[in-house]
């Protein structure tokens, strides 16, 4: 859910705006290094995908449903820099063309939903990838753990911002408990969908999953023919 205008006071909005602008600036440069002149069409299309994916509702119980926030899965699919760029673009377009999320809260929304979720999701994903066995099958697991933790952490960053620049005098401890409780549940959903979605993409196009590239490099092309002894000769 996008933070509207009026949740945070003006100084907080300005500071998060500066942080968000810096993050987008750095991501732009890093993504360009990686994608070169493919940046605009590829990031644009992936941003359109993230926007559409947020419209895909996953039913929970009796009429309630949720959708993916998508920061962690974007980081695993297209890499952290491109991920920050995609989700930030989505938030920018939603704010300017769909009136979703306040214009003064744009920086806050980018910090919470693009920066925090991507950074936390990617950091955990990489940390687990180093520790766990280097197999393609572990990629969805690492992605799911990253997604699960990224959501409550984003809610804690929201609470921290609220403690500094919130507009109402409410108990921060109470807010933290409520936000953590709700977002841990949301995180479980996010983790489940991330696990299933990354798994389904890995099954079809493992080369497209940025987070799986290191594990894929260890594969070798083996051409199997009907006569068993020729296999070793054509193996590259």
């Amino acid at each position, binding site marked *: *859910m996008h933070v*509207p*205008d*009026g*949740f*945070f*006071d*003006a100084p907080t*909005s*300005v500071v998060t705006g500066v942080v968000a602008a810096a993050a987008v*600036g750095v991501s*732009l440069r890093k993504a360009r290094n990686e994608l070169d*002149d*493919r*940046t*605009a*069409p*590829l990031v*644009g*299309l*992936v*941003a*359109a*995908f993230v*926007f*559409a*994916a947020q*419209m*895909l509702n*996953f*039913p*929970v*119980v009796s009429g309630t449903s949720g959708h*993916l926030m998508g920061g962690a899965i974007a980081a695993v*699919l*297209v890499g952290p820099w491109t991920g920050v760029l995609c989700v930030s*673009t*989505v938030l920018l377009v939603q*704010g*300017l*063309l*769909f*009136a979703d999320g*306040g*214009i*003064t*809260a744009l920086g806050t929304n980018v910090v919470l939903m693009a920066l925090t979720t991507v950074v936390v999701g990617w950091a955990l994903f990489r940390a687990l990838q180093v520790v766990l066995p280097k197999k393609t099958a572990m990629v969805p697991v690492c992605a799911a753990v990253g997604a699960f933790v990224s959501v409550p952490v984003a809610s804690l960053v929201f609470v921290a911002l609220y403690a500094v620049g919130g*507009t*109402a*005098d*409410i*108990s921060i401890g109470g807010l933290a408990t409520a936000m953590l409780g709700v977002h841990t549940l949301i995180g479980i959903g996010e983790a*489940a*969908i991330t696990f*299933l*979605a990354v*798994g*389904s*993409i890995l099954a079809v196009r493992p080369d*497209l999953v940025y987070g799986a590239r290191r594990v894929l490099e260890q594969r070798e092309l083996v051409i199997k023919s009907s006569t068993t002894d020729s296999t070793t000769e054509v193996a590259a």
Partner: protein
Amino acid sequence: MGGAHGHLLHFHAHSAIHRAPAHLKVVALLVFMITVVATPDDWFAAFGAYLMVLVAVIGLSRVPATYILKRMVVEVPFVLFAVLLPFVARGPRVEVLGLSLSESGLLAAFGLLATATLGVIASLTLAATTEPQALLKGLERLRLPTTLVQIMAFMIRYLSVVTEELRRMHVARVSRGFEARNPRHWPVLAKSFGALFIRSYERGERVHLAMLSRGYTGKMPL
């Protein structure tokens, strides 16, 4: 690049507000909203004045008020939060209709509701009176990085293509008797999600190749 897309919020009309340069409208929105956010919660007259300004601008723009009102539903989750505030906020309490409410909470709830509502109306007005193409040009004039503006241009251009693709997948699932009711059906939805990602990414690659074959060197005529 692509013309008007039906699901965007743009409302076609001819008015001074529609014709105003997009970069001025974006700056005006930003300055207006920062002023609103910086206004203390108890300056009730100021909030009234802000609303009058918006009503005047919408009147000038000839966008029907109902068009704006219908699209204000995005605000609903935060109305719920605002309604809770007087119950959970601290400080001296006051009796209203037999309920013990926090004074500071009531004021904060008013401030939040007023600011968020003004923000939604102001953003809707910008979205309703500005063509996406004009907005992109405006953002470029405001010195947003060219690559970022290009990314936004591609996203806006392909938004309806990708969402249509998602809709066709939905039709395909439904026509095979599938209806998502609970988490047991998530694997099917997740496969749609995965297929949509692969299709979008591959479309991005094809678009890039098509651009190269037409002489793309990294700059775009917007």
